[in-house]
């Protein structure tokens, strides 16, 4: 929705210019530390990891503490694997590099042997995620958009009716992840395709004026299309909403993200399938 984005951008600028913006000291209340779980299972064969950390004060202004010594396991309906705790990167628990997720299975994450509330009694947490299949990417193309000075990443793919209904798109440029944060991923539901062939649908953008990128002809652009669950789709929308600046009228009331970890823990454990498409940047506008 281009107009919506233009309006949001204008309102922000208008407020920043018309209103006066000033830093203020605000005394926020604090909350007790909670376990935070970040973990993904994908169909790619690679090391998959789960990161365990704690929540902290809002103005803590430092990396959140890691949770070490936990027993982390993943059950795929038939077998359980125990994740290995890394000593080099604390808080990270990894699978073997031969691990991959299988569409149609439900993955269950279990975290044990942790005492987040320090009461001397160990707690356990769990989460489940169904791994949806995803359609194959036929091809990827780039098209320059003059008005917004950006490269549109276009997707060509068939949407079989039996695949996932929710999608996440990420970009890799050469060997570097371009959309490393969930706030940079784009998402779509099946209304986007309407059950038809996606014939050059605009799914992502690369900004021309991004100096850190310095796109040159010959660069490889990889589009990852992921079939995600509806819960994860809603989590991404909420995360993107809550981490943007809020504007009265345009922003609804703030609220916590709908995570999927049991026992009051925060974060999200997700399983999804990936489909890759490539194109070479030529620089022709």
């Amino acid at each position, binding site marked *: *929705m*281009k*107009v*919506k984005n*233009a*309006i949001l951008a*204008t309102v922000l600028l*208008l*407020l*920043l*210019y*018309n*209103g*006066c*913006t000033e830093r*203020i*000291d*605000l005394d*926020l*209340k*604090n*909350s007790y530390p*909670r376990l*935070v779980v*970040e973990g993904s299972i994908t169909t790619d064969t690679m090391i998959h990891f789960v990161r365990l*950390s*704690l*929540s*902290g004060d*809002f*103005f*803590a*202004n430092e990396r*959140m503490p890691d949770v070490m010594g936990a027993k982390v396991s993943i059950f795929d309906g038939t077998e359980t694997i125990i994740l290995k705790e890394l000593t080099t990167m604390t808080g990270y628990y990894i699978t073997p590099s031969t691990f991959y997720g299988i569409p149609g299975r439900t993955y269950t994450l279990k975290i044990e042997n942790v005492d987040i509330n320090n009461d001397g009694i160990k707690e356990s947490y769990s989460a489940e995620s169904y791994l949806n299949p995803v359609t194959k990417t036929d091809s990827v193309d780039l098209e320059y958009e*003059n*008005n917004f000075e950006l490269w549109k990443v276009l997707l060509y793919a068939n949407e079989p009716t039996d695949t996932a209904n929710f999608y996440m798109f990420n970009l890799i440029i050469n060997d570097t992840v371009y959309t*490393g*944060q*969930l*706030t940079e991923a784009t998402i779509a539901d099946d209304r986007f395709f309407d059950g038809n062939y996606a014939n050059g649908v605009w799914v992502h953008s690369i900004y021309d004026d991004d100096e850190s990128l310095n796109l040159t002809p010959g660069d490889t652009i990889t589009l990852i299309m992921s079939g995600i669950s509806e819960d994860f789709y809603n989590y*991404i*929308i*909420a*995360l993107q909403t*809550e*981490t943007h600046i*809020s504007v*009265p*009228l*345009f*922003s*609804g*009331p*703030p*609220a*916590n*993200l709908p995570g999927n970890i049991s026992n009051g823990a*925060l*974060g*999200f454990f997700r399983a999804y399938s990936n489909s890759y498409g490539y194109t070479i940047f030529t620089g022709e506008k």
Partner: protein
Amino acid sequence: MKDTKIYFYDFNAKLNHTINNNNHIYLSGYFGRDIFKNDFSEMSFGNKTFTTRWNHIYNPKLFSNITFINSNYDYGLGTVESGANSFEWKSNLKDWSLKSDFNYFANTSNTINFGGQTTYHRIMPGHAYGKGENEMDNEIKIPEANSLEHAIYISNIQKITSRLSVKYGLRYSLFQNIGEGILYHYDDENNVTGEEEYKRGEVYNTYHGLEPRIGINYTLTASTSVKAAYSRTRQYLHMASNSTSSSPLDIWLPSSPNIKPQISDQFSLGWFKNFASNRIETSIEAFYKKMKNTIDFKDHAELLLNEHLEGELRFGRSWSYGAEFLVKFNLDKWNGWVGYTWLKAEREIIGINGDKPYLSPYDHTNDISIVINRKINERSFFAANWVFYTGSPVTFPVGRYESGGVIVPLYSERNTERMPNYHRLDISYTLKGRNKKKRRWQGEWVFSVYNAYYSKNAWVINFVNDDDTPYEMHAEMIYLFSIIPAITYNFKF
């Protein structure tokens, strides 16, 4: 403030015409507009009202007022230049009302008031369109909502004894959604399941009901009286306000098959006493109000140009209670008033805050206002007013965590925190022109300062991340008005 121009103007016109002793026509118009403008964008909002009133005296005991009112509130936002990305956005609320009101002095102990009214509401929630090259595919228009609101009423003020008087009345109101319009159907999970279009003038939904009221006034002594009252009202138009801040850019929603009218019952009890031969009036009033069908936005609601806004609403009940203390004084050189209100306002909405009650955004615990006028001489006076209220309840973070590569706020429950308190002083000095008999018009100069001590009242508080230091967050407020000095010239003719 960087190169921002703020200007506002209002224009009032009144015209009275006496046809004969029994027929008077009053015309009045109001036109006001506030504009904020910088090199890049412009925001404005304004109100236009036109009123025609015909006062007719049938006999010394009966007279009537027939009034036609047309009002138009609108706001707009847009870019100044017409580049490829330029756009304009408009929204307005128009009303056309016809009212007839009769007063009948039946006898010394009964004064009867009755009448009826009809209003046509036309709401355009939002229309945004690009003004650049791709204007055609860049248009979003939320369908207009049309509705009619009718009422008939009768009331009587009855003096039962020299000390006791009772005012009682009954109002019947009827609300109709009419075409041209689109009605969206939602399922239990607030997903759109279908839509229906209605032709111009077609009535597709009706609500109606009675609104009784009664008030009892009892005089204890020559300067003391007590009052008790009850009233029920039905509200068919709803202001959908984001609970963080109020702004001129609020969205108005009519009742519809998806939004029931809000019904409120209010009870109040008051005590009034005058001093110094009625030059000082004091009062204490306590009230309790309970409302059905209160609306609020769900978590993560999408408000911007959303044609399915009704699906973002959740419904429940609300209640408020409080006490109001007022001292009014009218002395030779000084007049004004000091008011204090203590208020508690809560709501309970299914699907919000785990269905538990929470504070309403209107819960301003302490509200103080002081208005003072000091007469200097026959031609000039000085005025000051100071307002203070407890900051609105808001939802703020009480913690943080890392997810998806970003810092995510962990929020309190809905509206458990507060915006900073709001306070402001405005002062003015008025100098009237000399009374010259030949001059057909009268003028006065007003020198005023809005927000005289530069109180920075937060409008919005955002929590932002510093680009260079990824783990650092800080709070930032946006305040809209600094000190605004103004010189106004008013004239009457």
